[in-house]
């Protein structure tokens, strides 16, 4: 599937209401006195590419660790595929794949040996290993020890390992970190393919362009609390600020001003400049998702 104008087409099927695959209800995780996740409630639908964003220390990785059974929640309800965590963890385990933010390969083994071990544990034919390696363009380096891999190759091998068993849910913690432009594009395309095939993808990232390009819905977390959850388009539409940058000349000197068109005095000021000053340049500023993110997380901190 190719992206059009930098955006991937959304499957028409996904516009229909789908059942929730992940449900967090009033989730609280504490480390002693520190509250890492504070009454977080959200749900992720089946076949959705869900972006989970937040500044450093917002509680994203802690939430993922709760979802994969790596940490027991202090309170709250967590359901994955209709099963309760952590009570039914053994039944949930085979349903998901988890790409952590740090590589956890068996360093002594080659890339192929790493994947073969996991294939055997999942009872998957060996041929799948070759297919996944080829998909992530790792076939040539498959027989090299992992310790000889570059950071990007390690990252791709990690993703290959976790999609090997065709999970229903895929958790990815910053999957495109350390990847070059080509590999980033490869991974994004692969994620969209997975989603098109019905896999639910839960992703954390700091790349806002990535969020805009591939995510169906996004939740922004700050200080452990949910700030807002919506589609990237809705985020931009609702939080867009209409700003205009204007340059004008007065007594041989070029002056600059940035004006917010949603504020009445500033609108009048713009009209005054256009009427009475010698305008050199006038242009509207495009509002990006990154601006929304900064605005919302900034508000959360203030």
């Amino acid at each position, binding site marked *: 599937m190719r992206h059009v104008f930098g955006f991937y087409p959304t499957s028409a099927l996904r516009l229909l209401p789908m059942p929730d695959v992940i449900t967090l209800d009033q989730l609280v995780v504490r480390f002693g006195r520190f509250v890492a996740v504070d009454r977080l409630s959200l749900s992720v639908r089946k076949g959705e590419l869900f972006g989970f964003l937040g500044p450093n220390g917002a509680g994203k990785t802690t939430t993922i660790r709760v979802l994969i*059974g790596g*940490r027991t929640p202090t309170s709250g309800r967590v359901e994955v595929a209709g099963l309760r965590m952590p009570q039914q963890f053994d039944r949930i*385990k*085979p349903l998901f794949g988890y790409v952590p933010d740090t590589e*956890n390969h068996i360093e002594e*083994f080659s890339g192929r040996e790493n994947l073969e071990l996991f294939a055997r544990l999942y009872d998957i034919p060996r041929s799948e290993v070759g297919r996944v390696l080829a998909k992530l363009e790792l076939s040539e380096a498959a027989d090299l020890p992992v310790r000889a891999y570059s950071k990007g190759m390690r990252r791709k091998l990690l993703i290959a390992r976790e999609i090997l068993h065709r999970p229903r849910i895929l958790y990815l913690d910053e999957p495109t970190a350390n990847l070059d432009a080509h590999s980033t594009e490869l991974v994004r395309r692969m994620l969209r393919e997975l989603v098109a095939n019905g896999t639910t993808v839960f992703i954390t990232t700091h790349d806002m362009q990535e969020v805009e390009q591939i995510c169906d819905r996004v939740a922004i977390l700050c200080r452990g609390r949910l700030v807002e959850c919506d589609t990237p388009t809705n985020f931009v539409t609702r939080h867009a600020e209409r700003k205009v940058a204007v340059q004008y000349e007065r007594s041989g000197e070029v002056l600059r001003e940035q004006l917010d068109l949603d504020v009445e005095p500033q609108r009048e000021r713009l009209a005054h400049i256009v009427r009475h000053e010698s305008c050199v340049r006038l242009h509207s500023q495009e509002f990006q998702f990154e601006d929304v993110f900064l605005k919302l997380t900034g508000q959360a901190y203030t």
Partner: protein
Amino acid sequence: MIPRPRMLAILIGREARRLRKNPSALLLLGMLTAIAILLSMSRPGPKPQMTCWVVYEEASPWTELLKQRAVGNARIHVVPMTEVKSLSDRRIYPPHDCAIELVGQVSNLPVPPEPDSAGQVENLPHEYKISVRFLFPGNDPNVLAPFLQWFWPATAEHFGSTAPFAVTTSPITGASRAAVMERLKQSSITELMTEELVATILLIIVLFVTCCHLQVSFTSQDRERGTLTALALTPASTTELLLSRYIFHLALGWTVCAAIVGILLPTAFVHPTLWVTLALASIGLVSVGTVMASLARTQSAAGVLSLCYMLFGGVIFYLATKFSAFGSIKDASFESHSLPLLFLSLKQNVPLEKAPGLANLAALVGTWTVAASWIFRQRGWR
């Protein structure tokens, strides 16, 4: 969940492949086996011949005759009691030697006297004055036979057919603990380093390396890298993860131990107590390793913890010999039970009174294993 053999086989295979790619661990195990081979090659010749010490309380024509009949036999020393070191009324003889102690004065009894099945001559007539004590090392009184072939004819030659004897025969090991310790102090280190002791030390080192150190090293490395979490998130259960580690490390430890016993003391190979003790001690050490690896956050911290455990054990053992208060702490460690049992098993001489020690060892190992299993499930794989 019941462990699945297929999962166990995959996980054990992974551990084995990992060991194969870990040359330092293989080198260490190879060195320990090489030490056993070198020791077996430099095995000392036959032990020096046993000497018999005939000591008397009072000189008499009988003792003079014994001296005369012993002339030319370098293995018999007829000496007064005062010439032999003693402690608490017990004479201290060199290790591996036997003794005939003549206490009291002459009277009339049949020569040789007829002891009952317990080696005692009972219903002594009132004329009895002399007590003859036969002392021998180890458990076999037959080692005295060559000396009795000399002693009784010489005695009969002096007394005729009757002599005033009370005869007792007992092993020297029946002497008081203090006397034994005193004898040990007088022995040189080379005399003490028997093959059984060397084999015990080697087995303990092998068990510590394979079952404790490697378990700590591998598991904490997996934890630090996050590999353990990755494996735990596959269909393999935490029980299977833990069990595969136990099986792998135990099999490795037992293989190297079997090689060392086979090289150094092949006769002890079939002694069942040896294998029961080895099995319990190794399970205990893997459990200790699991607890340490589950508690430490990094591989280096786990390594330091493992070293501290070894040093702490050594210090407690030493303090227990000096202060009785540390005795109970020592008894709470399974090493204090497994070490003597291993040594005695290698000597193929485990007395029945050591059975409670085996039971204590099993109880302590069981406790460690339950603790290791609980802590690994709670936090060991995360």
